[in-house]
């Protein structure tokens, strides 16, 4: 699972202070202040990326080759990338829609009230509840011998009438949505809270209706941050590994599982470097997502002043 993302939506009360003109020395100090963060980015982001890319460009003997990158065009690998992409897209959209509805429902509650505090806290926990724990929770409840499954069977409902889908690709949708919705609540709530009551008042004063407020003001203002949050959810699902590893043991249907196979297989040998190429493919996809995110973020900034 990815790390919790800091909320990127600008606050409304934080007005940019105008900086006094600086001299050389203090400017140098300012740059020095960037060093810890820059070092952190190099060690934990740039270096692993470069290493992964590099391993994809060499063969097992250390000679330069483009074969691994060529293998990305293999039908099985392409199918895997496609599975990963649609699964991430679907769970991101589901998570975004339901998460936004939860946020909307919470708007009516006082910000310091018990329910809202509880929902905020729960969202923080469940957004990070993934991997083996989450997989086991699903196996124990709606697995073939799960508590809920057995109860439903008692009521004459067989949720596995069409086969044990929980351990296949469709079975990943539910667990993924389970951690996507809370993540949406965390990231989207600040944007929704930033809708100014004055806008609603102005809308009413000028003879608008509730629906015209949402249509002309609410949705346009929220659209950029909604899409940005959706993209964040996409990246979150795209990079998830442990939940799928614990649930789906056959076929390595998503890219992170293909990377595991390439690195650890004891039956198909000598494909360690393919893992590098696969990682490169993932970095490209997430890079594109992040680029879209930044475009949208720039557009969103206009509304947040």
């Amino acid at each position: 699972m990815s790390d919790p993302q800091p909320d990127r939506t600008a606050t409304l009360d934080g007005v940019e202070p105008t900086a006094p003109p600086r001299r050389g020395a203090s400017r140098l100090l300012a740059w020095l202040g960037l060093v810890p963060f820059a070092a952190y980015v190099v060690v934990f982001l740039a270096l692993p990326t470069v290493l992964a890319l590099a391993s994809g460009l060499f063969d097992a003997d250390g000679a330069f080759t483009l074969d691994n990158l060529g293998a990305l065009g293999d039908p099985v690998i392409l199918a895997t990338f496609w599975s990963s992409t649609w699964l991430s897209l679907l769970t991101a959209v589901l998570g975004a829609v339901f998460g936004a509805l939860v946020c909307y429902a919470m708007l009516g509650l006082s910000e310091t009230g018990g329910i809202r505090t509880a929902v905020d806290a729960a969202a923080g926990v469940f957004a990070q509840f993934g991997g083996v724990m989450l997989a086991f929770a699903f196996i124990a409840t709606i697995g073939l011998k799960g508590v809920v499954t057995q109860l439903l069977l008692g009521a004459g409902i067989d949720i596995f009438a069409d086969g044990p889908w929980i351990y296949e690709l469709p079975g990943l949708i539910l667990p993924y949505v389970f951690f996507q919705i809370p993540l949406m609540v965390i990231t989207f709530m600040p944007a929704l809270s930033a809708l100014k009551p004055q806008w609603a008042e102005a809308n009413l004063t000028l003879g608008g209706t509730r629906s015209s407020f949402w249509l002309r003001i609410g949705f346009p203002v929220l659209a950029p941050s909604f899409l940005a949050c959706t993209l964040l959810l996409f990246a979150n699902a795209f990079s998830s590994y442990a939940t799928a590893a614990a649930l789906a043991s056959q076929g390595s249907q998503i890219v992170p599982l293909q990377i595991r196979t390439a690195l650890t297989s004891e039956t198909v040998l000598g494909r360690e470097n393919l893992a590098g190429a696969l990682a490169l493919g993932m970095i490209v996809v997430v890079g594109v997502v992040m680029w879209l995110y930044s475009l949208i973020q720039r557009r969103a900034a206009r509304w947040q002043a």
Partner: protein
Amino acid sequence: MTTLLRTPRLGAGLAVVAAATLALTACAGDAPAAGDSKAATATSVADFGTFADLEAAAKKEGALNVIALPRDWANYGAVIDAFKAKYPEITVNESSPDISSAEEIQAAKTNEGLDTAPDVFDLGLTVALQNTDVFAPYKVQTWDDIPDALKESTGLFVGDYGGYMSIGYDSSKFPEPESLDDLLGSDYKASVAINGDPTQAGAAFAAVGLATVQSGGDLDDFQPGIDFFSELNKAGNMLKLDVTSATIASGETPVVFDWDYLNATHVADNKAWKVRVFPGTGYAGYYNQAVNKNAPHPAAARLWQEFLYSDEGQNLWLKGGARPARMEAMTAAGTIDADAAAALPAAPTTVVVPSEAQSTAAGTLLGEKWAAAVQ
């Protein structure tokens, strides 16, 4: 073999990275002296002098690093404990019990020169054949008892224990399967699992091999086996969940393709668990022992080999339901544990083991076809 718990593996990965970093920064003087050079190049007990000299050299080293030995796999827990009891002066460090054969070799390479490197390996044949440059040749005292087919002629790697591909099933819920095709029937709806993914794990690969020969195919082409599992999947009978002791105990995976000695251990998780080896052509597989040529404890590594191939070590594997390499010779000599031997499932009439070329071809085919076949 895989487990539900991935965290140790992640930990192992981090440890490997950390160790690699250390290796980059360590001065040459920090590396442990690789025993005395005599132990590191010894190819048999004679190079030490007598067996007592080997024991003394191993005790002087005082430690042994083993890797990828799950305690419930072929009775390895008891094997390790017996070794500890026999040589209390030697600390046995067990690391990463659940990693794959390929990862054992990676661990040896990334930890090279550190005293955390594995001394000995327990490997699937494919990985052993590919990595002979990592091994030191060693012939145990009981070398002549081991069938030629199971050993590399110079002792680079030697078959240690093996078994037949089998079907384990919960006899309280299912009839005994008489043939592969029985598993396609509605009795086995959503119940048949393989221990792992054939493109990753040796046991799962062997399951496809068994399905191939049982469907009338031969090991040159695994396609009939892939077709069988594709049919099983279409029938809605295939479970794609990782098999662990927990899933057997909870009844989540009630019918499992696995080595007979691994299926046999599941009786502990489920009293009604039975093991079925089909008559006709069976599929056998042996794991292999090898000594790391850069072992930090070369004498202890060789003593461990001697222990594994002694009557005591071989009988312990047999107790775990595995067929040890010296089984025939020990049966002839009367040193075999007769009760444990009698408890093994009946052997199939003919037995096949894939050659290296067949394994490679099958691996390539599975890489192309498997994921799509079981979608």
